[in-house]
């Protein structure tokens, strides 16, 4: 499962500019660039009075905590929230074929989705394998040019070469279905949100929750409403991807120059004309970016929906996970990365050309050429045999060797992190009474991010207690904090190195791209192979998942430090180390704080997946709620607890970043 809320949110903010460049290079960093473009007043930062205040507060808190700490008793397994969700489940289960809500609502929804999937699948399977490859090339050629066409053909041939053709096409068909629906629903909503402020205000928190809610948490309700199978899978994917569509569309429409709109209005355009002739065409690059990001989100979610019977590459990955077969997961993961790269390049290419116009004749000729090529390929009798190559044996050999020879080292590392960091932190958090935690969140929030954020964060923290999952939430929080710490240390180190060496940055970029596109499921496997079933495994997987955007943000932050400032510091005789510590990092602080905010939310998403491999706590509750009937209510409650935890962390860190910026 991979929640990529932050990456998406980041792109959303950067929408208009980013549309013209590739996602990999600009998506995340442009937000950082936007941050960096604001006026800088950081140097007034160190006020001695404030430091003293913080120190006093820390001491007071520690003292108070020692006075009020509890024994950290286990959560009840019969909280009101669990019972409530269980009751809802039972009600739905028994009214599915009688209540009008289902007869005329939910069931028709499902039916409509089934239709869409059927059409898409029929189209996808209508062509033979080689013709599909040619068609991919043709679409890429028309949308994005010759180089992308070559890439698309190579990518699709790669699928066949990996022996994952069928699965790959199944995955593609589901992704396309979900994206179609997301665009149909999301774009009008986005336009509405941009034009009617009230709609935007209502939608925003809903989208926030949709993006933080762990994917596992809504698989169970999905199967409850739509049963297992492709429709449920597509709807789950839709829910996961549509916030991005809405957000980027909204930003794109809002970004349309008011001058142009006014001019058109002055010329007597109707409101409908203003939308269809001015706003939508002018926002076209953003709309293309919205499609691009929706595809990326959908692709990562479709893999997870294998758990509710979606066909495709996800099946291979789920199976590999169950058998701890790292090699098989690598093959399937690679196939997904190939698909992602091809789809990404096609849509970014299309976005780049969205503004440009070609004469109709040229377009016709190009379309004709492409169609002729597809036809020619489909007429050649290719036969059904093709070479296959799997990386599984090699990957498994390497994993086996590492496991055998590094076992002592990995085991020692795991124990060390667990005893030195994780366990002490966990016991502090779990023995904190909930009201004390809420109080601390409120105070820290007020000092750091203002009373509004503090209020939201404190309410969210209290909500976790209300759900009856306090102990598990605090255990999860401990894991998240340790993972976030490791992520930040690694991310800052790598980011700083990348900022100083163009070669390293160029070399690292494809690795980061792949790490971001690989479904997060896949990371679990090497982590499990090396570290067994433990919280540490979840931490390792989370770090791999969250480091790439942090590296990018840090790199961009450091690179964006004005060259004159760096020069001046050099001229004043700073050593490179001093330059970094005294000038570049302090000036890049906003980028770093933003990176911390994003890193933490991403880590949270991944730590939940760790529930699959022994990380326990909320992640386990969610996973079990999905797999065991009697745990349904607790699982759903745990899903919401994770959302609340996400809100607490996001508000505290986001506020911090903003406060520093102002």
């Amino acid at each position, binding site marked *: 499962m991979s929640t990529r809320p932050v990456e998406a949110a980041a792109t959303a903010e950067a929408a208009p500019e980013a549309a013209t460049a590739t996602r990999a290079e600009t998506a995340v960093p442009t937000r950082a660039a936007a941050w960096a473009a604001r006026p800088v007043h950081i140097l007034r930062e160190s006020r001695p009075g404030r430091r003293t205040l913080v120190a006093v507060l820390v001491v007071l808190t520690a003292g108070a905590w020692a006075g009020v700490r509890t024994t950290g008793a286990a959560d009840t397994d019969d909280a009101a929230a669990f019972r409530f969700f269980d009751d809802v489940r039972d009600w739905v289960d028994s009214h599915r074929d009688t209540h009008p809500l289902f007869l005329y609502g939910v069931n028709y929804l*499902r039916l409509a989705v089934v239709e869409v999937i059927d059409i898409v699948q029929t189209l996808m399977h209508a062509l033979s394998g080689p013709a599909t490859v040619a068609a991919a090339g043709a679409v890429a050629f028309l949308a994005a040019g010759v180089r992308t066409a070559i890439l698309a053909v190579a990518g699709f041939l790669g699928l066949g070469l990996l022996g994952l053709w069928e699965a790959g096409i199944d995955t593609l068909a589901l992704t396309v279905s979900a994206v179609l629906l997301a665009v149909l629903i999301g774009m009008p909503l986005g336009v509405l949100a941009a034009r009617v402020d009230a709609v935007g205000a209502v939608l925003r928190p809903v989208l926030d929750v949709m993006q933080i809610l762990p994917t596992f948490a809504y698989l169970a309700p999905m199967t409850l409403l739509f049963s297992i199978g492709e429709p449920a899978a597509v709807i789950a994917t839709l829910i996961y991807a549509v916030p991005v569509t809405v957000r980027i569309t909204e930003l794109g429409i809002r970004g349309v120059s008011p001058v142009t709109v006014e001019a058109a209005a002055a010329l007597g355009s109707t409101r409908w004309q203003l939308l269809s002739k001015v706003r939508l065409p002018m926002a076209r690059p953003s709309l293309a970016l919205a499609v691009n990001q929706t595809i990326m989100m959908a692709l990562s979610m479709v893999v997870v929906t294998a758990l509710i019977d979606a066909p495709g590459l996800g099946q291979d990955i789920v199976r590999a996970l*169950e058998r701890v077969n790292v090699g098989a997961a690598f093959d399937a993961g690679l196939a997904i990365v190939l698909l992602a790269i091809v789809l990404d390049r096609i849509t970014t290419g299309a976005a780049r050309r969205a503004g440009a116009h070609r004469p109709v004749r040229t377009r016709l000729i190009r379309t004709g050429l492409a169609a002729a090529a597809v036809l020619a390929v489909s007429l050649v009798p290719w036969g059904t045999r093709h070479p296959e190559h799997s990386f599984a044996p090699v990957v498994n050999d390497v994993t086996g060797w590492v496991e055998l020879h590094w076992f002592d080292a990995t085991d020692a590392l795991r124990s060390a992190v667990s005893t030195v960091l994780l366990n002490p932190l966990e016991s502090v958090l779990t023995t904190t009474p909930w009201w004390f935690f809420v109080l601390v969140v409120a105070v820290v929030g007020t000092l750091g991010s203002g009373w509004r954020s503090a209020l939201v964060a404190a309410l969210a923290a209290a909500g976790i207690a209300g759900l009856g999952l306090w102990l598990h939430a605090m255990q999860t929080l401990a894991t998240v904090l340790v993972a976030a710490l490791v992520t930040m240390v690694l991310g800052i180190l790598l980011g700083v190195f990348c900022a100083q060496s163009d070669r390293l940055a160029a070399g690292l970029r494809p690795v980061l791209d792949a790490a971001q596109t690989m479904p997060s499921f896949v990371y679990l496997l090497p982590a499990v192979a090396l570290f067994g079933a433990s919280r540490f495994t979840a931490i390792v997987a989370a770090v791999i998942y969250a480091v790439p955007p942090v590296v990018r943000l840090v790199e961009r932050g450091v690179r964006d430090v004005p060259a004159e400032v760096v020069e001046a510091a050099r001229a004043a005789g700073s050593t490179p180390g001093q330059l970094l510590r005294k000038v570049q990092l302090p000036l890049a602080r906003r980028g770093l704080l933003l990176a911390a905010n994003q890193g933490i939310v991403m880590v949270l998403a991944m730590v939940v997946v760790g529930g699959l491999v022994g990380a326990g706590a909320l992640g386990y509750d969610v996973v079990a709620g999905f797999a065991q009937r009697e745990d349904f209510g607790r699982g759903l409650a745990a899903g919401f607890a994770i959302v609340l935890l996400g809100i607490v962390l996001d508000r505290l860190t986001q506020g911090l970043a903003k406060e520093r910026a102002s």
Partner: protein
Amino acid sequence: MRWTLITSTTLLLAVAGCGGASSTAGSDSPSAKGTVKIAINPWVGYEANAAVLGYLLEHELGYTVEEKNLKEEIAWQGFETGEVDVIVENWGHDDLKKTYIDEKKVAVNAGPTGNDGIIGWYVPQWMADKYPDITDYKNLDKYANLFKTSESGGKGQLLDGDPSFVTNDAALVSNLKLNYKVVYSGSEAALIKAAQQATAQQKPLLFYFYEPQWLFAKEKYVRVKLPTYTAGCDADPKKVACDYPDYVLDKIASKKFADTGGAAYQLIKNFTWTNDDQNLVADYLTNQGMDHERAAGKWVKEHEATWKPWIPS
């Protein structure tokens, strides 16, 4: 834009015009004729059943087999929509039987697989030799220290499998007031790896495990005695304080498949073999790196007398 409007209006009208849709409307079509959809639950013994049945369906009866990797309880939901035709190794699940067979009437019992299922807590043989009284749950607390890990929070660790497996372990630990904590390894493969390590390196391990299971043919593990099972002692999953029952593993088919599945359903219904048979195929699958097709093919070639009677005349 205008088109979207028109289409959606038409769609709305269409909806208003006709009656309500059932929860399974539009979900296909009892499997296209000649296709059997077998759920694959995540343990290798199950896969052995599915592999052999799939092989025979394809090679002896000419059906196409579609395998679906699904967890146990989720696979049951597939009976409603026709996503799943058959589950070929079911462990108890009386609550699901009540819901899907008795109340919803979308599934039927297709008879036992011939395998006897045991679930229990195990320790490696060397531990039973070294600490003879460890095999009684009453003495487990005495040894809790041995089983401490970084994950067990100062208590002893009881290693469980996939969170979707049939288990009462969390309730058992708390109701028997044991100083232990259940930690989920996530999969059968992870469980087996831990067990093998415990034997090879003489590391203490207390774990959830089950038979039929190929590992028992290679290494010895001893079951820990829990309070004796009596009928109904596990009725309330939260209050269980007794051992697991002996399971008669069976096959469950969707009603639709049972009615229209013809020879395919007959074959699945007739299928019954021993734990040794299953362990053999599971061994092929796990330790000899064979896929379903090859492992089942090998077994089928060598055991004609066993499977011939399953083929419907």
